[in-house]
């Protein structure tokens, strides 16, 4: 197969060669096969001379790649079986388990890869073949035949002559399509305003009118003295599963404002007819960003800004949590709070504005 042919132009009309003729080499047959597929092998040249020093060297290189693979794969198995793999805190040999697996597996696979690549790229003869594309060459006759066949079929069906058939078929199939879609749509569809869920959170007073306590993440209620001035704490409704994703819209940030900020905040509240939403210097705002629903939880004490880390909306707490920068367009709803007879914070009522990301029918 060390033939080199220089045959730039492909013979157009050609008698197929008799491949059973005596005296043909294997390559002659291969080339004949290619020609039958309109491929002309115009250049076929060995890259290394058989038996040459270069060939032996390449063979050795490829063989060592494959042997490296064997070695690395064996090492992978050994690591996989015997290396301590269980997690233990701190640093230990277990920390090396995954890296060792990666290195051994990676080296094993790269060994095969480079071995095969070297084999194909360096050892096999280089060739240039030319194949015809045959685009749009024979089409016209076939196009007419196929087109006429399809039109003939349509005529035989006779929908044109018997329009009732077509109309009734359409009329029959349309409901079948709807039948296919119905269970999917019907099963999945869910009324978004069930139980008024989009406008109601866990802070809504209980049915007996009892006000809901503000609790911490561990469920303990909060006294005013628990939060120092300038401090803040995330609060949840003190109900069953109040501290869980079941009430994902409820969490609020309870902030103990400093005196001057609290006065400013109260004035802003009065302007919005939200007087009485604060208790003393304490104010509580929904923690769920009105933009995309992330918790707006980075509170900058000096400027009284609350930053949402997802899209960088910034809310000015002392001005009713008005958005002052970023993509949010609506202020964080304020939770009206007071202190009950036992000295714990409770929600006077639910949020008076819609909590969470905006939607079409939000009033």
């Amino acid at each position, binding site marked *: 197969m060390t033939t080199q042919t220089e045959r730039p132009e492909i013979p157009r009309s050609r008698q197929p060669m008799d491949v059973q003729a005596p005296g043909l080499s294997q390559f002659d047959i291969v080339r004949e096969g*290619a020609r039958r597929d309109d491929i002309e092998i115009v250049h076929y040249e060995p890259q290394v001379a058989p038996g040459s020093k270069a060939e032996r060297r390449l063979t050795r290189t490829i063989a060592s790649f494959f042997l490296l693979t064997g070695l690395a794969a064996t090492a992978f198995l050994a690591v996989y079986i015997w290396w301590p*793999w269980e997690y233990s805190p701190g640093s230990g040999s277990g920390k090396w388990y995954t*890296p060792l*697996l990666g290195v051994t597996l990676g080296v094993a696979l790269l060994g095969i890869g480079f071995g095969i690549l070297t084999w*194909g790229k360096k050892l096999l003869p280089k060739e240039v*073949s*030319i194949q015809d594309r045959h685009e749009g060459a024979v089409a016209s006759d076939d196009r007419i035949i196929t087109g006429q066949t399809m039109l003939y079929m349509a005529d035989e069906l006779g929908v044109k002559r018997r329009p009732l058939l077509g109309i009734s078929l359409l009329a029959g199939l349309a409901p079948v399509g709807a039948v296919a879609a119905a269970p999917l749509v019907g099963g999945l*569809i869910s009324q978004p305003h069930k139980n008024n869920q989009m406008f109601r959170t866990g802070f809504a007073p209980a049915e007996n009118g009892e006000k809901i306590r503000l609790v911490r993440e561990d469920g303990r209620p909060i006294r005013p003295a628990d939060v120092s001035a300038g401090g803040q704490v995330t609060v949840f409704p003190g109900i069953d599963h109040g501290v869980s994703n079941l009430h994902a819209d409820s969490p609020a940030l309870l902030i103990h404002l400093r005196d001057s900020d609290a006065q400013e905040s109260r004035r802003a509240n009065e302007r919005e007819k939200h007087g009485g939403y604060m208790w003393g210097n304490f104010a509580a705002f929904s923690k769920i960003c009105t933009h995309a629903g992330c918790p707006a939880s980075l509170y900058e004490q000096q400027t009284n800004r609350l930053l949402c880390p997802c899209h960088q909306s910034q809310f000015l707490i002392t001005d009713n949590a008005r958005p002052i920068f970023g993509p949010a367009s609506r202020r964080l709803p304020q939770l009206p709070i007071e202190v009950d007879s036992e000295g714990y914070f409770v929600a006077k009522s639910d949020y008076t504005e819609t909590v969470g990301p905006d*939607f079409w029918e939000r009033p």
Partner: protein
Amino acid sequence: MKRRKFEMAAVPGNAARGVDDRFQVATPLRRLLNKVFPDHWSFLLGEIALFSFVILLLTGVFLTFFYEPAMTEVVYNGSYAPLRGTPMSAAYASSLDISFDVRGGLIMRQMHHWSALLFMAAIVVHMLRVFFTGAFRKPRETNWIIGSLLFWVGFLAGFTGYSLPDDGLSGTGLRIASAIMLSIPVIGSWVTSSVFGGEFPGTIIISRFYIAHVLLVPGLLLALIGAHLGLVFKQKHTQWPGPGRTNGNVVGERMFPRYAIKQGGFFMVVFGVVALMGGLFQINPIWLFGPYEAWVVSAASQPDWYVMFLDGSTRLMPAWEINIPIGDGYVIPPLFWPTVVLPGILVGLSTLYPFLEARRLKDTRSHNLLQRPRDVPARTGLGAMAVSFFIVLTLSGANDVIADKFQISLNAMTWAGRIGLLVVPPLAYYVTYRICLGLQQHDREVLVHGVETGIIRRLPDGRFEEVHQPLSAADGHADGHGALPYAGWVVPKKMNRLGALGPAIRGFFYPIEKPAEAPVSPGHPPVEPRPEREEIGSGESRR
């Protein structure tokens, strides 16, 4: 009676005959073995995506054996001490178990994630190759559309998979996704409520995402990839212009054995690199994020890279809320534009582009020869515009991290992104256009005047001039040589490309063969400059 001898050597022949008797495969198999593929390194980018997809299937099947797609609350009691005793979803707990309590589970998870990132990256780079070389033109518009759909279906596969561990970071992503659905006018709340089975997060979204991620989306991907490859096969690959290459032929190698062997080797290399990455580079350490809790998030929450451009567009969007004062009032939230409308426009533009360009150029011919980006400055400029648009958005998706690390004001970063998004793409168009023209001009110049040799010659009147090596023989042109036409392919611009450098000697430390092209015969001096090179000289007399 003599026992017939069993001939080992005849077995393959007989087996082949038996198979062909039954299935008549000889002719189609010959066609397949003989199919010619053109070769160029840039044709391998799509293969990386294909190979990553295979790795995704392999590692993904492993993960399904251990993953539990349920949001039921469990208390973690696995090996990872810091989270022991924490209530969390079964999905998160089983993802932690895959990472800590399944032998070799972590490397599988990390390989899965890395190959997903590689899959998307390869798709994007492959798409850029196809775009900039004009490979999308007739007859390949359908495959271009399938390709751009593959990006978005891959995006969906990535997002559903990313959400499955139900950790703090992916839960936040899911929360944003729900807000995006909510923002759709009129039907938003219905869509969200139907997808999540009630209010966010509900208890069923993980199971739904799971079946989408392991069955529906991969099925769709598989079908699209099958169609994509089938069309490449049917329509035959495009090729670069070059000697003997025309619009009506394919010049390259037959598929077997060399081409197929190179593909196989390349697959193994991709697989090996993913294995190395999965073992050595940590990705998505879910145990650090904790379970998803609606009230917890940390700064520097970034999604996977291919989602970051949407995150960026969301961050840059000004707070423009549209209020419709009918009845109780209706709202179109600002979130709607960058996350629903923008991707919609991008899908539309990308799928329609081949038709838009063909219409503008009134081009109805089939093109099987590729174009160099410099030869189509307008398209290359548009591509540069798209890329810079994407880059500004992606950088803006990380603008909080950039602001933090480089001590820049966060608001300044946002404004830089807003202005950059409008200013940078047109600038990129202009600059790219000019660069393309410059490169074209230089190609023409070399074809007319020849390659710079670096040799300065002093003329008798004292002037200095650089000697150029013409690329064509003399034909009475003023300079004593002819101008070559531009053929749409690389023009040699260095003397080494013209064979000015001696033949390479093979071997690493010592030559393994005697240099072939240095015949030493007693009658000739060992090195004799070829006569046609006489023209290039330092000006010193050789005689």
